[in-house]
Every structure is written in C-alpha cells, then in structure tokens.
C-alpha cells in the first residue's frame, strides 16, 4: 500500500497523519526507555548473570549477593492480595451504583469514587504509615508488613476496578436486559446470568489493569511494607517490592549495585508486560 493512500490529502487524511505521527512518537519513546533500561542493566546481566539474580538467596548488592526472587515474590504477593480484596469490592461498587443506588446517591457516589481514584498515592502511604501500621503493630509488631501494603494498595485500586467495571456493564446492550426480562428473569437473575457474563471481559480487563497499577506502585509500598528483603512467609512479615527496591537504593548506588537495580526495573517491566498480555489474550478468547 502506498503511503499516499494511507494518508490521502484530505482533512481527514491530515488528522490521520498527525495521529499516526504522535502515536509513533509515544511508542518510540517507550521503546527508547526500554532500550535504555536494558542497556543500563546489561553490565550486571553480563558479569553477574541472569541466573544469579534468581538463585541468590539474599540481596546485599554491596557485598556481592543479588537475589531478586524474594522481591519478585513480594511484588506478586502484594498485587495478588490487593486484587483479591479490591476486585469483588470494586465490581460490587459498580453494580451497586448502576442498578441499586437511589437516584440522589448516584452522582455523589461517583464523585467519591473519582476522589479516591485521584488521591495521590503518597497521601495514602502517609495515612498507612501513621494510622494503619501502628494499628497492625499492636496486633503483631513491627506493623510495617505485607498486609499493610495489601490493604492500602487495595484501597488504591478499588476505584480503578469500579470505574472500568461500570463502563463494561454500561456497554452491555439494553436488548440483553429486555430479553432477560422477557424471559421472566428478575433483576438479580438477569444481572448474574446475562449482564455480568456479557460484561466479563471488560471487567476482567479492568481488574488486570488494576493489578498492573498495584505492581507498579512505589510510594505506598516503600512507606508501609518495611522493605526487608525476604520471602513473604506470612501476612505480618515485612517485605520489599521491586519498585521500592529501586526507589530506596538508586540514589546511592554505583557500579554493579546500580546496574542490578536496573535489572529489578527490567524484571518489573516484564512482569507488567506479561500481565497486560494476559489481559489482552483473555479479552480475545471470548471471540474465538
């Protein structure tokens, strides 16, 4: 296909060209960043080796131990835990607002969800550190723990789940409702058997998006999970996520230490890519 037929000399064609150029630029920058991160991580990957990042049991980068596995596990546990809490609550919140909330409540309720969605994570982190962590410490010291991170992350991603689930539910054609009603199904039965299944891929996509957000979150986990590098062996155990590892040590790292932090970044990026890939395949499955 010739370029000129892709972007004909019409107004529409000019807009298409502009949009194309901007999206190329955006993905180009993303690609450059990936190349940069990989380039910075390369010295560590070459001299230390990929295997040792997975097999070393400890992380003492200034003392030649580079185990990332505990942090991979911690990042995963944090995101998974947050999703287990946030997904049902978020979906329930969306269903409540769309189908059950009285009319006068709908707008303020949405405002509340958007407010929570817009709360800077550092504010949530500060709240977690000053309120939640001391409460947990009373149950089981030291308080800064996996569970603290899971709770605040869940709070942070509930609005993401709720907003995307609402959009997915709203996009279910009215005719589905009409057909379900015509079959004599009540509101509950129609919701559970017709509307939710019809919206499930949108809802699942939103949940995975929220999961990616939880994986990438830095400030909250840095402030309240204790940052101890070890395999998460309980909800009250302090853990360090890949993101906080970078934020904690990058400012002072040099040489192999610095390069190994870029390896953490690379590992995190891969984890997030896998997740968004899973989200996309999941969405496509429905049409197979």
């Amino acid at each position, binding site marked *: 296909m010739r370029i000129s037929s892709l972007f004909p000399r019409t107004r529409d064609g000019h807009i298409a060209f502009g949009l194309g150029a901007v999206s190329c630029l955006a993905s180009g*920058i*993303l690609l450059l*960043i990936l190349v*940069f*991160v990989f380039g*910075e991580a390369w010295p560590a990957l070459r001299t230390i080796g990929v295997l040792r990042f997975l097999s070393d049991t*400890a992380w*003492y*980068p*200034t*003392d030649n131990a580079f185990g990332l596995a505990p942090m991979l596990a911690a990042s995963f546990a944090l995101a998974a835990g947050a999703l287990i809490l946030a997904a049902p609550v978020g979906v329930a919140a969306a269903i409540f607002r769309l189908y059950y909330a009285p009319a006068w409540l709908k707008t303020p309720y949405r405002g509340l969800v958007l407010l929570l969605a817009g709360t800077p994570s550092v504010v949530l982190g500060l709240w977690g*550190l*000053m309120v939640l*962590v*001391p409460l947990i*410490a009373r149950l089981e*010291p*030291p*308080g*800064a723990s996996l569970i603290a991170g899971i709770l605040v992350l869940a709070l942070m991603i509930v609005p993401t789940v709720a907003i995307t689930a609402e959009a997915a539910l709203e996009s279910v054609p009215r005719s589905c409702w009409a057909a379900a009603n015509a079959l004599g199904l009540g509101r509950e039965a129609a919701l559970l058997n017709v509307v939710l299944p019809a919206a499930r891929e949108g809802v699942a996509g939103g949940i995975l*998006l929220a999961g*990616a*957000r939880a994986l*990438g979150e*830095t400030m909250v986990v*840095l*402030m309240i999970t*204790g*940052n*101890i590098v070890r395999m998460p062996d309980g909800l009250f155990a*302090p853990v*360090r996520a890949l993101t906080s590892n*970078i*934020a*904690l*040590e*990058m*400012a*002072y*790292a*040099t040489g192999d*230490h610095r390069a190994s932090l870029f390896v953490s*970044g690379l590992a995190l*990026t891969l984890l*997030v890519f896998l997740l*968004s890939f899973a989200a996309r395949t999941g969405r496509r499955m429905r049409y197979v």
Partner: protein
Amino acid sequence: MFSRRALGFLLALSMGLGIAAGAHADDRIVVTGSSTIAPLMAEIGKRFEKLHPGLRVDVQSGGSTRGVTDVRAGLSDIGMVSRAMSDDERDLVAYEIARDGIAIILHRDNPLTELSRRQIVGIYTGRVTDWSEVGGKPGRITVVNKAEGRSTLELFLAYFRLGVRDIVAHVVIGDNQQGIKTVSANPGAIGYVSIGTAEFEASAGTPVKLLGLEGVPASVANVKNGTYPLSRPLNLVTRPAGGERLERFIGFARSAEVDDIVADQFFVPSHP
C-alpha cells in the same frame, strides 16, 4: 493508563540519572554527592551566587560515593562526602565544612534513656528481641535500619563494627524523615537518623527521643565539642589544584559567613 504511569516513572528515573552535567564552564560550579550535604550546599551556593553575579552553583545529590567518582571522572568540580575520607581517596583534597552526628532514636514512651554498645549490637543483630532483655518495658523490638548505600548506614556499621549482613532489621528506611515517622509511629521501635534532624523533631514535639552513647547525651552541642562519639565530618572534595575559583567558593563555604545556614540545617560548623 498504566503504561503512561510507567512511562512517566521511567522517564523521571532516566532524567534523574542521566544528568551528567559537564563541569569546567567558567561561569558554573558543579557540586555533586552526599544527599546529607546537598541541601546545605544548595543554600550556600545561593548566597555565593548573590555575591558573585553571573556565576552559577549547580548542586546535585547522589550519595558520597558519587561525590568521589564524579570528581575523579571530571563530571563535577566539587564532591560532597559525608564521612571521613578513606585511604584510597588520597588523590583528592578534602575540606571539612561541618560535622553531623547520628543519634539512636526511640519512641518517647520508651522508658529507657541509655543503651550500652553491647546492647545496641545485640538488638541490631537480632540476639535481643524484647525490650525486657535490656531493662525496658516488655514488648517486641522493631529494628529500623537504613537502606544500603546510605552513608548513615556506613557510619553506623563502622562505629559498631558490624557488616551489612549482620543486621537483622524489621523495617528498612530511606531518608531521615521516614526514619522519624517510622519510629514515632511505633512505641517498640529503635532507629538512627541524623542528630540535627532528631533534635529538631524531638524539640518540635514529635514523639521520639535521642539516646545517649557512652555516657554522652546525643546533642548538636556535643557533636560540636567533639565528645559525642557517633559523628562524622561533612567534606567537600576536589582534585588537587582546583583553581582559584573553586578555592574561593570552598573558602566561603567554610567561613563564618555561612554559620547561620549550617545551623539552620542542624549541622555544626567547622572552621579552618
């Protein structure tokens, strides 16, 4: 949505790390290194700029180690190093501009007023896990440590003759403020931060208190008179023969003209 977040984060990261400003411009003095000294040098730099219009002082933090490597590599004119210079750093000239101490801090509600060296080592190596073992109220100890690479950690380890692997911590923190917040939110916690920060926070009503060491109370005054053992010099380093321009700036940074700035940052001025 997430990819834009990730993009922003990585972009900020790459920008933060990519600054390898070229030194040697005549109208510009590049200072890099310890994040403990950086805020101080930024203020001193501002005052120096006012006295010398047309000249710019550019301060970037990144740790003492970066301060040394940047000067060696010619990426900066002056390095900031918040520890005593080591033997393999004799190729550089160091000028002490101030002193800083590290205070061991506890929650205000903790009845203890002093711990021996042995007790602190015991707590930080995980052999002592309950306050009752060191004469305090029964309760689990939460050990707060600094992240690797921080000069505060290095000084702490060197003073107590510990290695990084010896420490069994429950919380690892980044900067001093995070340390203060973590300890003030947990009555069973023990941590260590810059003495100036700790003294300021304690006097401002934050529920933390400073522990004495070897019978010497932790205070800025005792760092100044040299009796407090856990303290460190704040150094500026340059290559030998840095030139008249740098000498004038360093002379200014060590003069009484900036005592008020040094005191504002809770450090103790050192004059040549």
